[in-house]
């Protein structure tokens, strides 16, 4: 049995063990959260506001440390932000002084920012010229994939809300992370843009299938994306239910099965609702 257990453990890219988070003011945001996430899956986390779902994402991203428990990334403990974990925030969070291209380039991390800033030996210069052209290709590819080629040199103030969020998506995709964390990524958009961008993101996901962990308060959004939908219960945040959604993609938002799941999850969120 032991080798099999080892194999199974190898399948989970991210493992959370008894994660708890208590803030300095004494409120407990998360308590005893256990979670395993397999590669190439889409996992949605739903919960009312204040259920600790954003805190959960921030802990996985390394932006915040848990008070108790452990996190493992491919079997190794996580101790800070990593470049192979991307983050898409609720707001675009673009640097207003940088063009779209330079903003997307930030996603490549610190080593790819210098443009001939460092003086290196000839060999290094050649290598850095190569990595420079690679970085350039990655950035323009990411911008093309979100359909913003025409705005590559625009400044954030010249973009609409939906376009800005697409730049944020490109910034998260550019380093080709194997896990992307999304914190209510579409909640600030209008209904039409939200639908468009949800479909767009799913299409982008199809090409290299990174693992997505989406936090949302929108049950329908959770179902459009998730192979799994996890329901977080608030105060303190715990995993209440964990549903496997085996519906074919693209998901039919008005099909009876979709509606069934929607009802089930809403009931789990608040039994008094349905």
């Amino acid at each position, binding site marked *: 049995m032991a080798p099999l257990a080892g194999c199974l453990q190898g399948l989970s890219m991210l493992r959370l063990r008894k994660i708890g988070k208590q803030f300095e003011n004494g409120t407990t945001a998360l308590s005893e959260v256990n979670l395993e996430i397999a590669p190439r899956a889409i996992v949605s986390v739903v919960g009312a506001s204040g259920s600790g779902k954003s805190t959960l994402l921030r802990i996985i991203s390394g*932006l915040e440390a848990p008070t108790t428990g452990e996190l493992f990334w491919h079997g190794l403990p996580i101790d800070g932000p990593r470049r192979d974990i991307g983050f898409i925030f609720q707001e675009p969070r673009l640097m207003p002084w940088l063009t779209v291209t330079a903003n997307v380039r930030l996603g490549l991390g610190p080593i790819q920012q210098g443009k001939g800033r460092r003086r290196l030996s000839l060999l290094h210069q050649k290598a850095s010229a190569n990595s420079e052209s690679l970085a350039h290709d990655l950035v323009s590819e990411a911008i093309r994939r979100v359909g913003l080629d025409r705005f590559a040199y625009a400044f954030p103030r010249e973009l609409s809300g939906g376009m800005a969020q697409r730049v944020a998506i490109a910034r998260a995709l550019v380093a080709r992370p194997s896990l992307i964390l999304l914190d209510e990524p579409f909640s600030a958009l209008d209904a039409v843009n939200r639908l468009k961008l949800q479909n767009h993101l799913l299409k982008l996901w199809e090409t290299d299938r990174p693992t997505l962990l989406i936090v949302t308060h929108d049950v329908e959004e959770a179902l459009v994306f998730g192979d799994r939908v996890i329901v977080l219960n608030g105060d303190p945040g715990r995993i209440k239910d964990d549903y496997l959604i085996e519906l074919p993609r693209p998901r039919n938002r008005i099909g009876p099965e979709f509606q069934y799941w929607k009802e089930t999850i809403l009931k789990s969120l608040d039994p008094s609702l349905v």
Partner: protein
Amino acid sequence: MAGPSAFTKAAADTSSSGISQTLFSVAWARWRSAFLGLLIPTILVAAWEILVRLGQIDGSLFSSPALIVSELSKLIANGALLQHLESTFFRIVAGFAIGVLAATLLGALTGFSKLGRQLLDPLLQSLRSIPSMAWVPLFILWLGINENSKICLIALGVFFPVYLNLMNGVQNVDRKLVEVGLATGFHGVQLMRTIVLPASLPAYLVGLRQGLALGWMFVVAAEIMGASRGLGYLLIDGEATGRPAIMFSAVILFAICGKLTDSVLVGLSERWLRWQDVYKG
């Protein structure tokens, strides 16, 4: 044949007068603000000149504008003015550079690092509450009446506004933007250079302008306390030799130099902050 050609000629006339009219209105819009800004000073200067000539104002206290202009042109002709300007500019440039350098390093440090702030800020804040002129005798004692003490005094004046604005600017950088940097692996100096400093640039530039204004204030103080050259010396010399026209010349030159150097910073700000999405009024 005469009819149509006369007609086209007339049409050409109207259109060319139309063009010149538009050109005129563009030029007018451009010069209008300059004109409006100069209107009241011109009237005041004219009134001043007339009142001095009529003997309504004492010319030995308020030299007539014509006398000031003639004194100024004498100073230009014998090359003295250039020497005074050179000295003053050398002092202000050196003092500004030293003050800005120190303020930038310390302001970035105390803004970015809590430990740095706890260690240094109380000390710097208490030094700031010493009236700057109180340093004058000490600087003279330590450094003598020479360029060093003057430049130090100017640097001290420049330091505090730049330091305070940068520290506050760094501390008030949007946490959300910093998180973007942290989440993509930036930290320490790289985070500072890529995100924190550009984000605090607007506050920093305000600090530079305030610092420059104080720099001009301190250059006067420094040159009054003992100098043989410079605009401040010109002022004192005019007083000692009973030549108010010279004093007025120095004051006017201070105004012009201060305004010009400030415009340089304003121009740089506009260039560097073009990305800002702001209401310009």
